[in-house]
């Protein structure tokens, strides 16, 4: 029923009621470790820890998590592969392998390979940490927590509106696309291009109109420039925070051990 699976997990998982501050602490700790150590071993461990915590505590299966983990793989590989490959010459040290392409020789050096693998490791490690937060914490809990931390209102309100309108826009775009599709708008390459262009410009106009309507509707409810809403207190558990810190410390120790 829900076409937005990450959101569905965020609202339906068993860690939903855990204080968002604790989940943010855990996730940002993991991301910091992944980026700080850039270690393949540590990142693999982080992925394993997230998978285990999600499976056991949140009720999100390893298989589901694995699916989400590979979502950004394309982006990561596009960034990492070119880093590993460079133009090499006879004098380049540590060339592992090379191939001649026209006048150039493209090769992989051990230094570039190490660099690429470090980026790969920190990317996947941070993705795992971020996914933990995304899969267990709905947007409303995040923005509430940011409000509690007195993050500037403008930023939080932007997040709220962007989040809300992602879905409004997606729904509008999907409806428009179906309407074009049934009138054969995508039946050839030229028509496809034409249709997608019309869709984009229409979507822009509609967004403008939506924004105007929202402003009007909010004005009727007394909007004067602040999107104030009720935020409930969210008590955190000292025991869990201790557990999170201990787990992060253990991972850091592994990271240090691998580095040494």
């Amino acid at each position, binding site marked *: 029923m*829900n076409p*937005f699976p990450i*959101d569905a997990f965020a*609202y339906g998982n068993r860690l939903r009621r855990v204080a968002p501050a604790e989940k943010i602490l855990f996730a940002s700790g993991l991301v910091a470790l992944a980026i700080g150590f850039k270690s393949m071993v540590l990142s693999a461990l982080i992925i394993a820890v997230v998978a285990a915590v999600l499976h056991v505590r949140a009720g999100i299966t390893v298989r589901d998590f694995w699916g989400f983990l590979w979502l950004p793989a394309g982006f990561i590989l596009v960034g990492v592969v070119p880093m590993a490959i460079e133009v090499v010459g006879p004098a380049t040290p540590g060339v592992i392998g090379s191939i001649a392409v026209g006048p150039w020789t493209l090769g992989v050096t051990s230094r570039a390979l190490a660099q690429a693998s470090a980026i790969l490791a920190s990317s996947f490690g941070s993705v795992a940490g971020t996914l933990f937060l995304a899969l267990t914490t*709905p*947007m*409303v809990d995040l*923005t509430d927590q940011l409000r509690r931390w007195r993050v500037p209102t403008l930023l939080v309100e932007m997040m*709220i*509106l962007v*989040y*809300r309108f992602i*879905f*409004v826009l997606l*729904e509008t775009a999907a409806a428009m696309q179906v309407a074009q599709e049934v009138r054969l708008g995508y039946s050839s390459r030229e028509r496809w291009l034409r249709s997608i262009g019309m869709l984009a410009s229409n979507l822009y106009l509609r967004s403008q109109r*939506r924004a105007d*309507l*929202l402003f*009007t*509707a*909010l*004005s*009727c*409810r*007394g*909007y*004067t420039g602040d*999107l*104030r*809403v*009720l*935020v409930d207190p969210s008590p955190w558990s000292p025991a869990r925070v201790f557990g999170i810190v201990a787990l992060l410390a253990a991972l850091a120790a592994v990271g240090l051990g691998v580095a040494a």
Partner: protein
Amino acid sequence: MIATTSTAPAIATTWASPAGATVGAAGRAPVTSGAATDALVQVRGVTFAYPDGTVALRSLDLSIPRGRKVVVLGANGCGKSTLFLHLGGVLRPKAGEIVLDGEVVRHDRAGLLRLRRTVGLVFQDPDSQLFASSVRQDISFGPLNLGWPEARVRTAVDDAIAATQIADLADRPAHLLSYGQKKRVAIAGVLAMDPQLIVADEPTAGLDPEATVRLVDLFDRLNAEGRTIVISTHDVELALAWADEVIVMREGEVIQTGLPTDVFQDMAVLRMARLHRPIVLETYAHLRHMGLVPEDAVPPRNAGELADLINCNCARIPED
């Protein structure tokens, strides 16, 4: 042929309104005079044109009696939504004025605040009204803007959630709600501000029959609390069965105001407003024409009343 049978204004004098005795004379008189004693809102000579030149309201007069259920009818583009936007203080009349509780609405900060405390405007498309990441937070937006203390806001939000029967949706984001659910949330967001007058633009449009019944039931409960309800609709059966008073608009003007059973038998007005007569009254007219119901019978407002009418009359037949 059938049309001619029901245009006589004389019928109106004999019948009692189901809404109670208070309707009496005040409801009967043409309300457009603006002289009704207990009018919550009066619109006096309001004219409005959109920037593109479209004149949407032409020196419009109407009066909304306190505590009543009012239905505004009229073809698309007759100015219903523009009128509602004026009632909500969104649009400002180019000429004329809006009187709230006997006091002319000023379109400055204080005046608009007063208006918005009293009038809750529910938009036709709930998506244009919902913004927050959870239903409960969205509902809390209005009361917080009224500057109430937090405890009062919480009570108001809980009460609005209970009244609109959306407790199970309170923690959901808007995109996980059905259209009907969004409508209820939009009403709850307005209701939480405790308005005396709720104005809803085509609230039943796009709802399934079950959701429509539930929504009408909600409006009835809000009305029973003493709130005045104004809705627009194209559903003449609903207007006949539900309204204490109907207002018929055409090209930016009010062309008729009165009890639904009167207005819906005024074929000239219906034709002008491009409306049709509800099936219940259509049938009633046929039956009267055929002599199957007495000439002095009270016009029915729904299928049940129509059935009763036939039943009573049939009971009399053996005597004849």
